[in-house]
């Protein structure tokens, strides 16, 4: 199987990239672990940012103000040229989604409705009730059907096929049959989403493992800023299913066990609509100081009752259903117990502003990539935006790359790659190794949640790094119990764990090395931001002995670092 462009992943970034490259005339296919509409983009709720100035309160909003909010929200780690691209492309991309059929909620004048979100100076978040991601995902899937894009459904990518100079395609496994095959591609775009399952408490899907970060890393592409992990302030206790930031955007309160709106202590102006890193820390402090509720290992309340039935049913019907299904609580009548949970990773596969990596023929876009537009902390509503803006740019870059490319795909490289990867899978199936998936996976996730969570310090992080390295060593002695190749979840999950351990190690190594507090990386032993020494990106390179860290300066255009006050 050969295509000019193969997009790995069928979520928002992947589908947007595929549509762009197909529109440029490149033979494009999508290879996805899930049917594309199953992707976790569909769980995004609150909305997508663009300075459309549609509401009476935001008539003087501009892309430049959106860029400034993004850079300040990033704690001055975002590359400012990239943040400007993100925000200036935003209106075009949102209007385009509307033209393709996304059913945005509407203002009385019939324009796209916008709501306030954290860290934003204006109501800038374009929304479709509280199911914005679902509707955009389905609309992009519809566009992929319209353009006749070939989709390889339920295929797991296993490795990239590269030689010394460039990439020639990939090797993947068909879950439905167990077949392992090579796919020639002049350009591969990795758009595989988040890595939340590296942590125990996460809002992410079961399939948001991030194992492909390990795949790219082992193929020689560095991972950038992996230590910056976002903990969403409001996830349902127990399952950590997301309660959208839109709930606070619509006026919801966070309340502790004293009945206080405690955000007045931490962000007196922005209150509940401070950026996520700040709100999550505030909640955790309340819980740690005994002002939380004991449920779910510690929580506070998200109180929406004062919004009233009508507003909740119109603007927030999805999260109401979720709280009823998973907690038996109707937010019209009772507050919802919530706690911070892993939600997003700002870091990822290192790319430039067109999604290109240092390996010719490999691009990346969306959550799995790090451009960086989010720096040390992403603003709510900027991730769906990153998916459509960077998806479009990566699709265009890949489409143009294959047009200009003079060399042919090397079959010998593909054959070697499929032989080697098949042998690895055969060996795993035949292994009499003592170690098993569940023990290693649970140790990883528990350690990452306990030791590299909202608050961090030297010793626990050093322990976590040592644990990840030990788990990596133990992984070499792993075996699988299920041997039948067809829809073998034991095999798939074991393969995924290998990549997750690589990614987890880069998170631990990057976090331990960074001796400052910035955005979501908050250290008890280095409490302030240190621009003189640490206003720089971390790049983790794979070596057999563990991650080798390098640093790269942040691109500044207009804005000098300042203290973040909200």
């Amino acid at each position: 199987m050969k295509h000019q462009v193969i997009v790995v992943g069928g979520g928002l970034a992947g589908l947007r990239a595929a549509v762009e490259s197909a529109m440029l005339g490149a033979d494009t296919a999508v290879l996805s672990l899930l049917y594309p509409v199953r992707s976790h983009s569909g769980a995004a709720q609150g909305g997508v940012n663009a300075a459309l100035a549609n509401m009476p309160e935001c008539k003087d909003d501009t892309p430049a103000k959106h860029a400034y909010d993004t850079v300040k929200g990033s704690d001055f780690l975002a590359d400012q040229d990239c943040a400007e691209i993100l925000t200036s492309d935003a209106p075009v991309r949102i209007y385009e989604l509307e033209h393709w059929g996304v059913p945005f909620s509407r203002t009385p004048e019939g324009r796209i409705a916008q709501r306030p979100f954290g860290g934003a100076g204006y109501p800038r978040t374009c929304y479709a009730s509280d199911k914005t991601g679902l509707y955009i995902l389905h609309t992009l899937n519809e566009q992929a059907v319209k353009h006749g894009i070939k989709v390889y459904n339920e295929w797991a990518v296993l490795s990239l096929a590269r030689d010394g100079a460039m990439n020639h395609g990939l090797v993947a496994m068909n879950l439905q049959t167990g077949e392992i095959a090579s796919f020639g591609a002049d350009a591969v775009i990795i758009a595989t989403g988040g890595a939340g399952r590296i942590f125990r408490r996460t809002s992410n899907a079961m399939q948001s493992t991030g194992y492909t970060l390990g795949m790219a890393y082992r193929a020689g592409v560095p991972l950038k800023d992996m230590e910056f992990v976002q903990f969403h302030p409001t996830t349902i206790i127990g399952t950590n299913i997301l309660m959208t930031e839109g709930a606070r955007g619509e006026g919801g309160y966070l309340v502790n066990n004293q009945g206080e709106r405690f955000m007045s202590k931490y962000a007196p102006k922005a209150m509940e609509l401070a950026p996520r890193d700040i709100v999550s820390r505030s909640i955790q402090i309340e819980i740690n100081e005994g002002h939380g509720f004991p449920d779910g290992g510690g929580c506070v309340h998200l109180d929406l009752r004062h919004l009233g039935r009508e507003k909740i049913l119109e603007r927030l019907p999805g999260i109401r259903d979720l709280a009823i299904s998973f907690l038996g609580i109707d937010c019209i009548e009772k507050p919802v117990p919530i706690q911070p949970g892993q939600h997003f990773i700002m870091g990822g596969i290192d790319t430039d502003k067109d999604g290109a990596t240092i390996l010719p023929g490999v691009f990346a876009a969306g959550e799995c990539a790090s451009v960086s537009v989010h720096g040390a902390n992403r603003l709510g509503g900027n991730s769906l935006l990153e998916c459509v803006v960077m998806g479009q740019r990566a699709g265009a870059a890949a489409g143009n790359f294959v047009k200009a490319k003079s060399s042919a795909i090397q079959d010998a490289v593909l054959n070697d790659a499929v032989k080697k990867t098949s042998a690895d899978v055969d060996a795993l199936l035949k292994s009499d190794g003592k170690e098993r998936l569940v023990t290693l996976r649970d140790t990883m996730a528990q350690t990452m949640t306990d030791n590299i969570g909202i608050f961090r310090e030297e010793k626990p992080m050093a322990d976590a790094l040592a644990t990840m390295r030990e788990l990596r060593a133990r992984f070499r002695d792993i075996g699988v119990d299920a041997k039948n190749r067809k829809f073998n979840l034991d095999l798939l999950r074991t393969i995924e764990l290998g990549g997750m351990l690589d990614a987890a190690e880069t998170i631990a190594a990057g976090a331990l090395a960074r001796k400052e507090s910035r955005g979501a990386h908050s250290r008890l032993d280095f409490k302030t931001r240190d621009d003189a020494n640490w206003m720089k990106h971390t790049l983790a390179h794979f070596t057999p002995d563990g991650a080798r860290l390098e640093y790269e300066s942040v691109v500044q255009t207009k804005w000098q670092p300042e203290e973040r006050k909200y």
Partner: protein
Amino acid sequence: MTDSIKLSIYRRDPDLDTAPRYQTYEIQPEPGQTVLMALYHILDNVDKSIAFRASCRSAVCGSCGMHINGQNRLACETQLAPLGNEILIEPLPHLPVLKDLVVDMTAFWDKYEKVRPYLIAMKNPPEKERLQSPAQRKRIDEFIDCILCACCHSTCTLDAWSNDYLGPAALAKAYRFVADTRDEGGVERLKIVASEEGVFRCHTIFNCTEECPKKISPTFAIQEMKKKVLVAKFSGKM
């Protein structure tokens, strides 16, 4: 301590087994545990060979539609507690089984593609958004919520048996565009659903409406399109 419960799960690999069998697993339920959590508990700790689909575990991705105690539901949002001490878990009925709870979705997606499931716009769009009033937008509220889980497709007495009948999911998708003021597919799309294998094939049994986890009524969508087809025919547009 609560009593243990028995989950009886459909097992079959058509390459190896001539007939399905039901394997029983006994577990200690935990408060708030869902059917999907129980399946993961079994996969993690008891039987690693079991196959099922799942991802978001929050009732939005549509992966985990299955037949639970005789009803099509999403495993992720179905609590164990109300289901009693003996729970029967089977794949979506009437669909070819690939393995255990994993069914072949090919026919489902083929039908989806047949209704031209995308906004059709003849005119060039304006520079900014097309205008649509909140009331106009409200008309598609119900039908944009479809997550394509195939619960309706599997329970319809015609759909899963017939490769030709478009079925409730694809027809509800078509209606999502028919009812959208921005869509200009008009008669072209109505022609697709007015075919012998379209809306007039529906026997109005309401199985789809009854078993939709998102409380959508494909039957309503089908009836509305029947009316639109008749109006188009009588007015000479079709």
